[in-house]
């Protein structure tokens, strides 16, 4: 059975996509960098963070590369002044929405949001900070969730559901009131579905989900388990 091949253009280069591939998949295959935050290989894309926005010729809207499928002859631009400004603003808004305070974060130096800001040249946040009063849930014996540092990428929700199969994590609320929750919005330590596997902690791009006992700048995340686990499971089935 042959798979349909689509030919299109990214940044002036002719590229081809297999059926089901997204613009981001094809760009990665061709070593064309597109910044991402919520996307993680091994998890279904959701288009939550919007930093992978790309321009598509003759389309007025910017579209997220992680969930947009290419069409024949489509012309995609991954880097332009307009895109850089959008990505920068999105990153600044992520910072302004919660209390990240990198300098005293356990993930300082190992944080995807921090690296993103650095790569995009974010030196200041131009929108006012919201400074929400958010709690830290340290009821779990091994892990902590600090809502101050959550960017609502939903990686924890997806890895728990798609890989671990526990579906402990979910989202609750809308807009600035949106939070990740465990089970029926109860303290993590009281969750009956949580297997304490720690996958959510390691896929979390920031210092929102961390191992207990880590001091500042000590929380290094290991996400490499995910593609291995995925491949192993696919080969078994």
């Amino acid at each position, binding site marked *: 059975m042959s798979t349909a091949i689509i030919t299109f253009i990214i940044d002036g280069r002719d590229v081809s996509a297999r059926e089901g591939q997204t613009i981001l998949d094809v760009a990665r295959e061709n070593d064309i960098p597109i910044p991402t935050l919520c996307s993680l290989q091994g998890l279904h894309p959701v288009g939550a963070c919007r930093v992978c926005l790309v321009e598509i010729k003759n389309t007025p809207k910017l579209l997220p590369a992680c969930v947009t499928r290419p069409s024949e002859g489509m012309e995609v631009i991954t880097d332009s002044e307009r895109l850089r400004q959008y990505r920068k603003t999105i990153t600044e808004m992520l910072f302004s929405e919660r209390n990240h305070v990198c*300098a*005293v974060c*356990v993930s*300082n130096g190992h944080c995807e949001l921090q690296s993103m800001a650095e790569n995009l040249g974010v030196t200041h946040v131009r929108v006012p900070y919201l400074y929400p009063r958010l*709690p*830290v849930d*340290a*009821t779990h014996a091994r892990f*902590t969730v600090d809502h101050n540092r959550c960017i609502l990428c939903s990686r924890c929700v997806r890895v728990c559901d798609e890989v671990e199969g526990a579906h402990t994590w979910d989202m609750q609320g809308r807009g600035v009131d949106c939070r990740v929750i465990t089970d029926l919005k109860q303290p993590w*330590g009281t969750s009956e579905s949580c297997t304490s596997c720690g996958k959510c902690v390691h896929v979390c791009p920031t210092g929102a989900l961390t191992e*207990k*006992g*880590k*001091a*500042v*700048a*000590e929380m290094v995340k290991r996400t490499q388990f995910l593609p291995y686990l995925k491949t192993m499971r696919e080969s078994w089935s």
Partner: protein
Amino acid sequence: MAKHIIIDPVTRIEGHSKITIFLNDQGKVENAQFHVTQFRGFEKFVEGRPFQEMPSLTARTCGICPVSHLMAASKACDDIMAVRIPATAAKLRRVLNLAQMVQSHALSFFHLSSPDFLLGMDSDPVARNILGVAAKFPELAQDGIWLRKFGQQVIERMTGKRVHPAWVVPGGVSKPLSAEVRDQILADVPKALTIARRTLEWFKPAIKKFEEEISTFANFPSLFLGLVTPDGSLEHYDGFMRIVDSNRKIIADKLESSAYAHHIGEAVEPFSYLKSPFFKPLGYPGGMYRVGPLARLNVCDRCGTPLADRELAEFRKLQEGAVLSSFHYHYARLIEIVYGIERLSELLGSSDILSTQVRAVANPNKSEGVGVSEAPRGTLIHHYRIDPDGLVTWANLIIATGHNNLAMNRGITQAAKHFVTGKKIAEGALNRVEAVIRCYDPCLSCSTHALGQMPLQVQLRDVEGTVLDEQLRE
């Protein structure tokens, strides 16, 4: 009619403050007040944070002595975890603490205070700074800069970062010391010691020119508080608190850090954001005490290193009993620099200093912890309470400069009475009142856990509060 003089802002100190001098009906100085005009609220906003973050959170109080906060905070966390940290970890923390003391003392002595000694209390204020010193006394300025760099480099080499290192953690330190770093530090020790001794040899005879300042710069009987080792030697990292009176008679000894609140009270005055701690048994304000280099040398029986002990013996000859003039904080600072370099080199030479066992790991085992260490400016107390999940529910920080608050107020009153006459503030008199504050090397941003720069303002006011004269320094 009584008047006020206001100095605002006070210069060459760390933080932001203002001095008001009150004149009586005869135009003579009646009283002086040291106002610390900044407020920050660290104790409040750490509430709800995991206790393991406390070293780094509280270290942000200050960019000059973050290491001191790391020490007291990590010790309070060790207490919460109820662990005894590995011996090597304690030694490494000690080395770091001493390095920070050397750099901070060098900053205070050379950069902030030496312009007064070298160029004169009455010299042109435009050039009375480290650049003025560098122009006229380049060797001494270079010595100062090199010595501060030495301390800062030890911190950077050991922790990877000069300011706000994250290397000191609850339970010990995060990484062991490498032989390479140890050797690099040890290679610089001889030069550091030479500079420290050279400076002392210059300073000891030079202070003879400052008899008037010595006799009026906070020269009065008071208590002194500092840490000592169990055998009574000079101590900066651990040990017990000891209090001596102006005769160097021990009035309280072997005080456990956890019981600090039993001995020390904190009063609040409406004119300053800085609290006024006092020794409880003697009440407020009679329980006034001083901390810092002068207090530590008055409190200890000996330094415990050869060169520093020789200097201490000479220092003791200044006065029978405790050395009382706060002017001698500068002298004490230089002796502590010598001690710091000797001691850190001794610690780095110990056989287990490269051990890789540098961290104890534990969950919180107590709901409360206290950590006490000596910051360059004096005794530093961190006290936290946590909930069963390890989140901080309450914190109390008593910072070195705070302990000295009562003595600083007393000191500027004494100096103002001596040097300030009439309705106008003579520049030299203004500088001398400020110089009293500088003796203590206060870190006001730390002590109020506050934000901002540290220029000084002095106001002269009459009884009705009318400002007669005002001097501003940026």
